[in-house]
């Protein structure tokens, strides 16, 4: 099929899709007129039932908690899958992060960038930690917090401190963090089962003040576990991608850009 034929076929298909979309949208109740019962029921009951004022987190970690276990393990499986897909193939070896072409002129990381990113690293990790532990009060939660923590660690890389960045993500610590995060969530659920309650039942006292740090029972605990898991998963994922820049195939000085020669060895 030529690209032109492909585009014509696509034009027909997209016209049909847009027509179906518009047809479907014409039956919607209209922007701003939310009709469904679930949101209203949850808004009416969430705070009295859980003492947690962050209703989105309440849904994610309480009402839809079982779903979120699956969601977390999607990320877990993705990070694990990436480690497998990007494993070191036969004929590949790590090179030193120092430039091999000694006389190549490289732009240096500018001073202000280094200072700003290194200054930001600590506060970013702290902010992520705060987000991950305040799901029961504010627009925050483990997923957002985990990503911010990972960003803080990435800031060290941005500052040009590649070696320091590598030391910040030893495999053992990351693996342990992933295990604690993913396992902690499931163990919280099983702890409820051990007390003859349903899986992921909120068995921790809910506190008295809505939105306080001590309120919300298991919501805060689960959110924290998710935060650890997400931070570890993202550092792992980004680190895997960065490590690819250091991989070289033996016998080909130009790396992967010359073509198929290296492929067969990898199989």
């Amino acid at each position, binding site marked *: 099929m030529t690209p032109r034929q492909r585009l014509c076929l696509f034009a027909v298909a997209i016209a049909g899709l847009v027509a179906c979309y518009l047809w479907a949208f014409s039956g919607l109740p209209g*922007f701003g007129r939310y009709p469904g019962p679930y949101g209203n029921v949850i*808004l009416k009951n969430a705070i009295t039932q859980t003492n947690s004022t962050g209703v989105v987190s309440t849904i994610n970690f309480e009402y839809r908690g079982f779903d979120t276990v699956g969601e977390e393990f999607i990320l877990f499986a*993705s990070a694990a899958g990436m480690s497998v897909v990007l494993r070191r193939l036969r004929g590949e070896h790590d090179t030193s992060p120092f430039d091999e072409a000694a006389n190549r002129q490289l732009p240096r990381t500018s001073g202000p960038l280094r200072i700003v990113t290194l200054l930001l690293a600590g506060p970013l990790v702290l902010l992520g930690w705060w987000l991950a532990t305040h799901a029961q009060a504010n627009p925050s939660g483990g997923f957002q917090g985990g990503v911010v923590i990972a960003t803080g660690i990435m800031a060290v890389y941005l500052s040009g401190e590649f070696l320091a960045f590598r030391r910040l993500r030893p495999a053992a610590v990351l693996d342990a963090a992933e295990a604690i995060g993913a396992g902690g969530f499931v163990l919280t659920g099983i702890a409820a089962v051990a007390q003859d309650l349903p899986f992921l039942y909120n068995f921790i006292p809910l506190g008295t003040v809505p939105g306080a740090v001590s309120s919300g029972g298991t919501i805060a605990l689960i959110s924290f576990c998710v935060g650890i898991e997400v931070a570890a998963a993202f550092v792992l994922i980004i680190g895997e*991608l960065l490590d690819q820049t250091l991989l070289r*195939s033996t016998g080909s000085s130009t790396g992967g850009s010359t*073509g*198929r020669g290296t492929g067969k060895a990898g199989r």
Partner: protein
Amino acid sequence: MQIFPFLVVAWIVAVGLYGLVTSRDLIHQIVCLIVVQSSTYVLLLAVGYVTGGIAPYFYDISPHTTAVDPVVQALALTDVVVEAAVTALLLSFAIQAHKRFGTLDPHQLAEFKG
């Protein structure tokens, strides 16, 4: 204007799909896939919007204030996480494809039966 947000959704899907079809680069295709998926955020948030509603957080606001639907917002969060996971995996596949075949052009990749 009642249907305008939904037209935006349809537009995002359409441009994303156009990019997917015409792209000659795997990384660019992955970005186009992200564009297609981001239409679902707009759709979810548009479906759950209540005129005059606030975000469903009541830390210092009366719980009886009108708020938008929190269920679709939770779903949008799930959506973001799944997208991050899918993107990470797709990017690693693109790296391996480039290592093995030395190209990221899907037309050339189709010639290698791999």
